[in-house]
């Protein structure tokens, strides 16, 4: 099943948010992402998956990142060290819905982990999407390594591939966040890194203001001389513009940039807290739709048709995956090592 809106079809004009076609395309990406997450939650509740975690509420940002990322394999392209709320980034880049549905169902043909990992734990080598982990913030310790390779292997002196690292606000309490700031800004060895914190003001159940004394997380980046912005991550236009500035700066200078994006967490932390819709959180899609309606670029009927189309896509993916199988038990050691050693106990298992 192919994507309804592959990334190649999203034309990016000079002033994107004054362009009706672009805005409608952007909106469609957001809706598909949301409906995918709703389907994944439904799968979890109906027993077609053991656990859900994802990113409803981060679509305004994630679609922008998916569209602005330079997609490909190797240091000339952008490396993405994402977190487990980033499905919509990869969906926007062109991954079909069924890829995520397969990971939810832990089927043998789950393209990200072969049925081994939770949903939203994406790894996709051909698009430089580094393995998403459950360990919080470790991606910030790993990201400087890919950025070093990009610093060394850029295509020309004026253009860098960018290492993008994304994590939440609670994770910034981990030491790996500080490590990343230090390694990104070593004197005379600055790295082409875009460090992004999506700030939803919660760590599972713990409000950020009960644990963090700093006014802005971005101030911590500024202390290292890294340019930083605090941005309304629910506003597609603002987050698009901030990302564009960040990418342009990094590609031309090879130096790091920091964005703190204020976002919503619409369904709580994960299925562990029920994944129920949380009252009082602003929905970036509803807000954007009001704007589109006010501009008379879309009608209620057309909005409903877009939702119905995305719903049908997710439903079809779910129906197909229901009949797909788990990996066979005897494959449990496969890929422990590359190059022939199977794993397990020497002399007994191999």
């Amino acid at each position, binding site marked *: 099943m192919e994507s309804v809106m592959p990334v190649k079809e999203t034309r990016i004009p000079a002033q994107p948010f004054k362009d009706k076609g672009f805005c409608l395309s952007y909106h469609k990406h957001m809706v598909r992402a949301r409906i995918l997450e709703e389907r994944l939650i439904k799968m979890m509740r109906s027993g077609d998956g053991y656990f859900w975690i994802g990113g409803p509420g981060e679509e305004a940002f994630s679609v922008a990142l998916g569209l602005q990322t330079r997609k490909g394999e*190797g*240091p000339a392209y952008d*490396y993405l060290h994402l977190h487990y709320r980033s499905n919509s980034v990869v969906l926007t880049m062109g991954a079909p819905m069924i890829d995520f549905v397969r990971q939810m169902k832990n089927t043998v043909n*789950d393209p*990200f*982990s*072969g049925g*081994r*990992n939770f949903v939203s*734990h994406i*790894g*996709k*080598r051909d698009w430089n999407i*580094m*393995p998403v*982990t459950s*360990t919080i913030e*470790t991606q*910030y*310790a*790993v*990201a*400087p*390594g*890919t*950025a*070093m*390779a*990009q610093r*060394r*292997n850029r295509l020309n002196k004026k253009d860098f591939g960018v*290492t993008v690292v994304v994590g939440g606000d609670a994770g910034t309490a981990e*030491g*790996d966040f500080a*490590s990343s700031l*230090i*390694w990104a800004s*070593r004197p005379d060895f600055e790295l082409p890194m875009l460090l992004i914190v999506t700030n939803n003001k919660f760590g599972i159940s713990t409000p950020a203001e009960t644990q963090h004394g700093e006014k802005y997380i971005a101030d911590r980046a500024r202390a290292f001389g890294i340019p930083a912005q605090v941005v309304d991550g629910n506003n597609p236009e603002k987050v698009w513009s901030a990302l564009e500035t960040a990418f342009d700066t990094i590609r031309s200078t090879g130096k790091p940039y920091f964005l703190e994006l204020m976002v919503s967490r619409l369904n709580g932390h994960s299925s562990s807290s029920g994944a129920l819709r949380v009252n009082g959180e602003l929905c970036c899609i509803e807000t954007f739709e009001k704007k589109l309606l006010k501009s008379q670029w879309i009608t209620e009927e057309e909005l409903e048709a877009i939702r119905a189309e995305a719903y049908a896509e997710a439903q079809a993916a779910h129906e197909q995956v229901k009949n797909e199988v788990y990996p066979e038990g005897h494959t449990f050691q*496969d*890929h*422990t*090592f*590359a*190059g022939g*050693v199977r*794993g397990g*106990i*020497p*002399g*007994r298992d*191999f």
Partner: protein
Amino acid sequence: MAQAIRMALHYGEENMGVTDIFGQDVGPPLGGVFTCTQGLKTTWNTPLDERGIIGAAMGLALAGQKPVAEIQFCDYIFNTIDLLKLAGNNNWATNGQFPLNMTVMTPVGAGIHGSIYHSHSFDAWASRLPGWKIVIPSNPRDAYGLLLAAIEDPNPVLFMHPKALLRIKGEELIPGEPSDEKDLKERIDAPLGDARKGWKPNWPALEFAPTPIGKAKIVREGTGATVVTYARHVHLAKKVADKLSAEGVGEVEVIDLRTIYPYDWAAVSASVKKTGRVLFLNEDTEITNFGEHLLRRTIEEHYYQLRARPRVLAGAHVPGIGLAPPLEEASVPQENDIERELREMLSELT
């Protein structure tokens, strides 16, 4: 042994595509606290950040580089344990998409009066890192060969060099190594003081001569009992075995395991079947010691071939190695401890 490590790294960066050799004080001017990285082309110094070092190595490997990272003492590797876990599971968790061709070097063990935080062992901890290969040489030739094998291997490899052996001279020359010790020193040891400025090593013409990972070595043949050991205790075991032989007490076979994982069970098994008596010897702390795993396999697979009860002789379960010589001697196995165990074992009636 320090020179052997240096020569292997030189061979690696000249002929095997090693891109980065890094860690605290690894680059100029020091070239490592044990001089293992003097005079190399691709060395650089890092912040004092072990997690950053392991993370950077992972990122570089993810981006197709070939890094060799050093943790200055294994005593300081403990705060990286979850990153080591991730490095070991990256390929498995992504169903074979992300093998990590990275090597981590770290000095291990007691024997230099290193007190509490320069005497730790890491072999038992390392054996619980699925996805890693773990090697530990006992002599310069194996240090050279195992490091080349580590660099060549497409998986993460932990190279643990016993710090008490870093100044020993080997019996076997490295292929290409000058036979005159003084000649080698003049060629590759950096001069002290101002003479170091502008100094360049004059490397001998070295050869690709890896020591296979997973292959033990019988360093002394015998039929009366087997000692399975590694690192500096190979030398202690051999010395005791020679003494017992001279006294006519018995002929002890000494196996240098060389690889903790994937260990050479075939070699251990064959020797146990031959002698019926086995001592597993190392200096890591004795509760959940790696030798205990080998003991379990011995009992499960060779119970009816044993002629005496098998044993583990390991470090005491203490929080650290005390600085005063009597404390260190009481904490890690000494010659007299090995001799006592072997005499008892050889005297058991069958």
